């Protein structure tokens, strides 16, 4: 049975790749059908081109890296934290934090590794940027950022942290760009200063987590402690 033009146009609009023999025959049945099919084909090509947005170069490698993740879930971080407090008392190191394939003996080691991994690269990509998605990005952690700090954010992205996932943030300050790594659920020694590779970092304890402020020694990251400490505000999760 042949298809009328109205049915044909309807199918072009809903399922132009349909392989039904009646539809395929109709595509070539008359001038009117041929012209409509050609216009539809052109539109579909444009649609495919428009939807074909570029994919990050590192997407595939980052997905393949997942195979290094243990299939069985690791013991919860809290158990490690309890064990850590006991072990630290006798100066025995031996804890393991897992971040993808990497293991860390301490949050300090994580901060150094994480910054060395992509800290400089993120700083470079933040140049001239203004982040307008801070609240949306932090919403998944049930946290908001106070305007004093959020207006300084030039870039924010998700990143792995000892407890799973956090945010890598770059602040645009008068002293130049400063990195803040937000680590939900990760306890730290509040105010602890660290020096590594010519950089300085300060750990900040927050409600429900912690942060590391990282910059050059000249930038005196300690001056941002109060700002960061008061800026991460817990918001109740919607039921």
């Amino acid at each position, binding site marked *: 049975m042949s298809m009328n033009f109205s049915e044909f146009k309807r199918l072009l609009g*809903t399922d132009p790749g349909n392989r039904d023999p009646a539809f395929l025959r109709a595509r070539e049945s008359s001038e009117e059908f041929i012209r409509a099919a050609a216009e539809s084909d052109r539109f579909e090509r444009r649609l495919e081109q428009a939807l074909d947005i*570029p994919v990050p170069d590192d997407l595939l490698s980052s*997905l393949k890296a*997942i195979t290094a993740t243990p299939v069985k879930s690791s013991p919860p971080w809290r158990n490690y934290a309890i064990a850590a407090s006991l072990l630290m008392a006798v100066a025995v190191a031996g804890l393991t934090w897992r971040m993808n394939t990497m293991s860390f003996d301490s949050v300090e080691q994580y901060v150094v590794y994480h910054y060395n991994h992509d800290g400089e690269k993120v700083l470079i990509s933040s140049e001239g940027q203004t982040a307008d998605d801070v609240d949306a990005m932090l919403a*998944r952690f049930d946290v908001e950022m106070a305007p004093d700090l959020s207006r300084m954010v030039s870039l*924010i992205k998700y990143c792995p942290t000892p407890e799973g996932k956090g945010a890598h943030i770059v602040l645009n300050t008068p002293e130049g760009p400063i990195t803040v790594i937000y680590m939900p659920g990760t306890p730290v020694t509040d105010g602890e200063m660290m020096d590594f590779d010519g950089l300085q970092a300060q750990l900040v304890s927050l409600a429900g987590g912690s942060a590391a402020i990282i910059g050059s020694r000249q930038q005196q990251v300690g001056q941002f402690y109060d700002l960061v400490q008061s800026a991460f505000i817990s918001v109740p999760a919607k039921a």
Partner: protein
Amino acid sequence: MSNETERQARFNGLAEAYGADLYRYAMWICGNDALAKDLVQETYLRAWKALDKLNDIGAAKSWLITILRREYARTFERKVPKFTDVDAIEVPEDTEMEPDDRLEIQLLRNHINKLPIKYREPLLLQVVMGNSCEEIAHKLDISKSAVMTQLFRARKQLLERVQKDGVTGNVHELF
């Protein structure tokens, strides 16, 4: 080949086959690069952990889309932010495309991004993920006829909007 090596090879195959399209799909539903990458990462992490439950490799694409949609819903059960990264994606100036063609694609992207999600998502599932109307109906838990209506309206709205822009070439009274 050991079981673990086979498992990794199977997983890598899924990453190669569907990773890019899932990223595009995620990007078009959430509109933010960081979140799209995160959604795809979470999807594949869950897939890796549950890979042994996937008995039919032919069902893998559908399985991954379902995981991603659940993860997206879980992410936004608290809040639905407005992201606009997708607006900023520019059509590369490759040599094979005329400036008018690039402009048309750019305008079409803007219009796709503005489509209501109930029209945009079936379109993405069809064009980006290659799903049939039946598969889309199953995923969205709506009837096939509802899917067909949404797909038709999505295309009609896009066509009307690009026609208003005056850059649609010969496409006039298609729908």
